[in-house]
């Protein structure tokens, strides 16, 4: 499942400065290629710059294996502009519609679909509320408990019957169209982080969820004075120990 990034320019600059290819090197390369194109470089200049970037990230890398990817990125760098979105607005009417849905998991899935559809609309005005992602990715973002394929499809079928979503006419196309988008209503809040959308919905509803002070990930609060997520608390603990040692050494 790929990470959803709202500000590709910042992500590209971050990758170049920190010399990181990240979990998905191909996507990072595409972002960096688009950044170079936006900065005014020509297509024939972008390919050698991408190679230099890869070698700076990892001197042992086999450039031959990445030939197709580099060629594709340099050729298509100018095809689409950089995505620079601050956030996706969710309106009052949309939240009311979601709150009226029967079932907590269904509400979270619908919220996730709404956020993804609005993100698609922000990236491309011709999107028309479609969500063109794999169902596994959508349900993973909605943070449900373990759901098998049959349960997922059953839930989507119920939503379709209720008129909340629609499917493509093409028989092997599993894209979903969200039918509850209502931009005329006043904006309630903006979603700027597309991780754990289900948990974010729960937090908005007032459940016991919190945002990590370090990375901003929304997680379930297990302790009253919890401030960090599991990944960040280890680093924070080490930092605090180091700080204490330095203070007491002095």
């Amino acid at each position, binding site marked *: 499942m790929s990470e959803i990034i709202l500000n590709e320019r910042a992500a590209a600059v971050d990758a170049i400065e920190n010399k990181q290819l990240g979990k998905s090197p191909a996507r990072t390369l595409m972002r960096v290629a688009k950044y170079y194109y936006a900065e005014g470089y020509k297509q024939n200049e972008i390919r050698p710059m991408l190679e230099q970037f890869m070698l700076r990230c*990892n001197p*042992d*890398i*086999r450039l031959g*294996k*990445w030939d197709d990817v580099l060629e594709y990125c340099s050729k298509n760098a100018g095809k689409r502009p950089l995505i620079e979105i601050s956030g996706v607005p969710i309106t009052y009417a949309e939240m009311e519609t979601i709150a009226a849905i029967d079932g907590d998991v269904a509400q979270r899935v619908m919220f996730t679909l709404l956020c993804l559809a609005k993100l698609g609309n922000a990236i491309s005005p011709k999107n028309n509320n479609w969500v063109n992602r794999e*169902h596994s990715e959508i349900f993973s973002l909605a943070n449900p408990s373990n759901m098998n*394929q*049959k349960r997922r*499809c*059953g839930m*989507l*079928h119920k939503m*379709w019957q209720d008129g909340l979503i629609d*499917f493509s006419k*093409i*028989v*092997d*196309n*599993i894209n979903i169209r969200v039918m509850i988008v209502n931009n005329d209503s006043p904006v309630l809040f903006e979603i700027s982080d597309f991780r754990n959308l289900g948990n974010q919905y729960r937090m908005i509803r007032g459940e016991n969820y919190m945002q990590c002070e370090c990375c901003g990930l929304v997680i379930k609060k297990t302790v009253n004075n919890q401030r960090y997520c599991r990944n960040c608390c280890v680093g924070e603990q080490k930092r605090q120990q180091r700080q204490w040692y330095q203070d007491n050494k002095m």
Partner: protein
Amino acid sequence: MPRFWYDVSGWNADDSCFESEEVRELNRRIVADKKPYFMIYIYPDLMKRYKTYVKHTATKAMCCVGSEIDALKNAPEELCSEQQREFMDYCNGRMPVGTNVCLMNSICDVFETEFDGCVSRYCVDSDFDYSFMKSGKPYMQSQYTKIAKEYKEYLARQRDIMTEQSVIDTSTNTMSDRYYTLNEEFMRNCLSVCTNEETLCDILLDVCYKTNKSRQFVWSMCGEQIVENLEKSHNVIKFPMQDIDGSIDFAGMTFTMSEKETTYYVRDYSE
């Protein structure tokens, strides 16, 4: 090859090569726009397209029509609704391969039925009783949970190394060093959970042999202990020996089973 032989839209209404409307209609009916089904085993790209199509139509059937696609295929036509019949028509029409009952497709079907699931059946060692490798020491559930976590982490790290190996130019020595370092690290982690090697061996066997995932972990962590357990409990080793008059056939040679009694030496850790 004329385009109208393989492309449905390849024929032109004004094309004068057709003698009459009947000939044009005939050509349209017999157009070979799809490869037959058995060719999925020749063209990997076609296999991928076919499998993706089957997966997506199955999902779409459950989402849109509300029933599984196998049930729709097997249901009598008179019992299906208009929507279900329409769905199946489109599903069969847009199939990327031709599923008509021709000779090669029928032969392909016979082979598929015969070999269906045979690899997974042989891979699952459900009858393999690994208890003879154990030391027989009891352990706590908390230790089992921690070791299971370490196993999961080990598999993830191993996958990262293998992915990196395909991308970065590394020599065999570098990779073996990396695996050695990885094994040492996890050995330390496992021993911090359970200091007794015999108990650790039992926990690792239960963690690894209850699933179908890689069992390399248990042999890397406590291979020596397993061999020691085998020597202690079984002093007779059976192995195949090459023999012209043997009853076991393998790789073009014949073997017979031989036995040898072993002596178990107790290690003296006091020295």
